[in-house]
């Protein structure tokens, strides 16, 4: 009976549902936004006076090299820097759209994409590990802090959580590095020891061996402490605030009156609701994973995306910097799009925005 009923339903136009129309509209605006963004990025990169050539020459002079004028003229032509900026921009965008060719990095002398791709795994690994640390430690601490509000434990935890956020990362990092030198006689600079690096270079160790190597994790503690404490603090506070809100709700009182165990109340009911803002904060995570923290990475000698972008910007290596920024922007816009879709699915009012004013 029911089967025939469903079969009898007329075929629906996929674009007729308001949800689909909403998605369609948002995706349409995607392309013009990306184009405007790429233009703005390119302009910002070009804003400082000079270009890669001046960086290059300044660098050579710093080593006492004498650069001949003929060479400067040749380099200018070779880098394409003798053309006006809009021509450079147009060529770059055209190559990306038609060819997926992101241009050449002047500094590295190689195509841009491999330069980005080679630091991508470690960037993602470091970001994921520090973010996981933030969540895995922040959520339980937040719950504890909310359940035992105003207790000594609450104050101590909140204080420690805040401390991590209040410390400027670069100073924290160098203090920890110096500390490891004082305590162990070897400074924990970078993620790998000499043994690991030599073994990886010779092919004796693969990346999965590195990830389980104890020396790697010993060194990983510094980035986790420096870069993870910001996220930890945010998660702790948000969890604490949300849990407090939830614990004050009527249904909790009712459940307690009914005799439901405290643990069940906390973990089964309040926690789920309290995780809401944390989960919706995940939309910004996409771009954060890609980028990671720049300043801490420079101080700690981590070869990840942040320092690479910073170096490219300083040297005015415009295609490399432009591509990294473009990808970051893309991820942000994508993240917003996804989170908007999810929110629209949850809250019907948003789907109908733009229709009537109520």
């Amino acid at each position, binding site marked *: 009976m029911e089967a025939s009923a469903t079969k009898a339903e007329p075929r629906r136009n996929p674009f007729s549902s308001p949800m689909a129309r909403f998605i369609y509209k948002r995706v349409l605006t995607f392309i013009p936004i990306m184009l405007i963004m790429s233009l703005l990025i390119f302009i910002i990169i070009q804003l*400082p*006076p*000079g270009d890669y050539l*001046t*960086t290059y*020459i*300044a*660098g050579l*002079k*710093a*080593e*006492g*090299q*004498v650069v*001949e*004028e*003929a*060479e400067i003229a*040749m*380099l200018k032509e*070779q880098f394409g820097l003798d053309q006006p900026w809009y021509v450079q921009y147009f060529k770059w965008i055209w190559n990306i759209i038609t060819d997926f060719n992101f241009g*050449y990095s002047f*500094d*590295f*002398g*190689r*195509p841009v994409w*491999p330069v980005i791709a080679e630091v991508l795994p470690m960037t993602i690994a470091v970001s994921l590990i520090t973010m996981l640390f933030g969540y895995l430690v922040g959520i339980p601490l937040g719950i504890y802090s909310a359940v035992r509000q105003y207790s000594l434990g609450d104050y101590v935890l909140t204080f420690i959580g805040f401390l991590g956020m209040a410390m400027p990362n670069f100073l924290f990092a*160098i203090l920890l*590095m*110096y500390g490891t*030198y004082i305590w162990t*006689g*070897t*400074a924990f*600079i*970078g993620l*790998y020891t*000499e043994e690991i*690096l*030599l073994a990886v*270079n010779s092919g004796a160790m693969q990346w999965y061996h590195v990830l389980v190597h104890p020396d790697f994790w010993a060194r990983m503690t510094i980035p986790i402490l420096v870069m993870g404490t910001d996220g930890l603090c945010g998660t702790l506070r948000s969890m604490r605030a949300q849990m407090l809100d939830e614990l004050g709700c009527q249904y909790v009182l009712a459940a307690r009156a009914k005799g439901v165990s405290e643990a069940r109340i906390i973990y089964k009911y309040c926690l789920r609701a309290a995780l809401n803002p944390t989960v919706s904060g995940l939309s910004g995570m996409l771009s954060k994973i890609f980028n990671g923290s720049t300043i801490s*990475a*420079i*101080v700690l*000698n981590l*070869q990840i995306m942040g*320092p690479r972008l910073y*170096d490219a910007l*300083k*040297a*005015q290596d415009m295609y490399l910097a432009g591509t990294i920024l473009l990808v970051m922007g893309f991820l942000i816009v994508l993240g917003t799009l996804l989170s908007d879709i999810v929110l629209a699915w949850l809250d019907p009012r948003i789907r109908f925005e733009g229709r009537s004013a109520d």
Partner: protein
Amino acid sequence: MKRILSLALALLMLVGMIPMASAETAAYTQSPYLDGKELPAVADRLPIASDVMVEEMKEIGQYGGALTLLQGGSSKWGPGKPTEEALFRFNTDGTIEPNVAKGYDVNEDATVYTIYLREGMKWSDGVPFTSEDCRFFYEDLLIPGVTTKSVWEAMYSSDANGEDKTMATLEIVDDYTFKVVFKYPKPNFLKELAINGKWFFAPKHWLQDKIPGENYLSQEEADKLAAELGYSDVKSMGNSLTYYYWIVPGRPTLRAWTIQGDFEAELCTWVRNPYYWKVDAEGKQLPYIDELHFRRYSDAEQALLWTLDGTADISSVALADVETILNDATAAVELIEWSSVDWASNSIQLNQAIKDEDLRALFQNVKFRQALSIAVNREQIVELVDNGYTEAAQSAPAAGAQGYSEEWTKAYTQYDVAAAQALLEECGLVKGDDGFYYFANGKKVVLNLQYQDETHASLAELLKNDFTILGLETTTRMYDRSIMEEMRSANNHEVVINYESFSTVSLSLRPDYFVPFRDYCIWGTAFGLWYKNPANEAAVEPPADVKAMLETYDKMMAATTVEKRDEIAGELLAMFKDGLYEIGFSSALPAVYAIDANLRNFPDVAVDCDEFRNLGIANFAQLWLAAE
């Protein structure tokens, strides 16, 4: 009887010769690192006995170990300079000696140089190194412009008036001899080659299928190859394979080590070259050290930590960090002090071609520069900026360099604000009611001090203080290095602190930063443009004293003998003494290196400069690590 005796004697001599002959071939030994690798015998890898280079050194060393050095940025000269092997190289006393070349002859008027190479010398892949490799480099790479570099200045000669600049030609005599023929006398050729020419050879057997040219690839084939190998174009490929070649794995070189890994990696390994052509006095094939490790750092503090904890075997140390290292009881490093060729450790240069007309007239007035010089409290700078490691001094050549005089070093170094103000008034400036000086036309005199490194911030502060007390309004600002360079090339710089300051091992060999014959020196960038082409819009005509300097420079470059050239250099130096083109405040800082306490044969005394390839003067092939 006599016949038997003489026969016996002859037999004895013959018999005695045999062990000597075999001793000669059996005398070479190789590092255990190479044992078990399928290589020809040592003697076959080295040049013939009479041509092999025997390195002189303090102590005969032992094989083994890896030397760790630090790499800070993307500069390829980090590994390039210590491992460089040029035709002729410098000694610590500034003379040159044969290196890749075995020796040379020069004719009477210094127009023909005959260079002798070493027979049996091989590239790092075992292919013989011959004069054809030198000709290939000059005629098929340098002159056609396979790279973006232009032909070395060292290869040109001009007539007595500095005109008719002509390129030298090569004549191959045989596999191991070639001649460099100049149209006009070129007395300093070898030294100039050692400084600016660097090397003069390239592996033809390896490059011949990778470069464009008449007998090589066509332009399309070269484009295709460049794209395949991942270069943006053919010129980039040329630069990488023929100029910055040492970071290309697999490219044959003559260096003691060859790169094995990726230059950009966190740890880059260089492995010994089994065909290296030098031995020590006991016949051990050099280098002693088996591997070089280059560790990357992104922040100077990491370099210091690596020096303290012993990871780095040789590293450069800033003077501010010297005490940290000495006060650390566990740091197993020794500090070595080399002298530098800077004329001053802290100095300023005034852009005498500055766009503002009033300031230009003022900056070109030597009395103004004298006023600035005596208005500065040098003692304070020595204590606060240099931590007492220097002395109050004027910008002048150091003791031992040509032109040095006690008088010059102390010229205009007294601290006398009143006398300075009197000089300002002699320049036509008028003191206003607010205590600051104005031009006669009522405009206020404003000095913009510019610097490109944050370590100069304290010097800028102190100078600003001193000049304000003098009565000149001063501002200070830091610029990123590349922006500073951009400003300089656009002639927008004004008073520049510690940027491309006077520094040279010899004015006659490298006058680029001193004399404005091209747009290089800070104090006269636009003058250099005028020298090249007076019609250039951006050029500024120099005043009389600078024109006299340029004429003297021309005469110096056209000198036919070394003595004449040095004599005219002396005239130039006298102009610099009187001209105060750079105002210096403290004597040059030494260059300090921290070396592993077990490292041997590292020179205690040397001059640290680019002409001598900085660390390269230590001759890395002769360094060795003693066991703990």
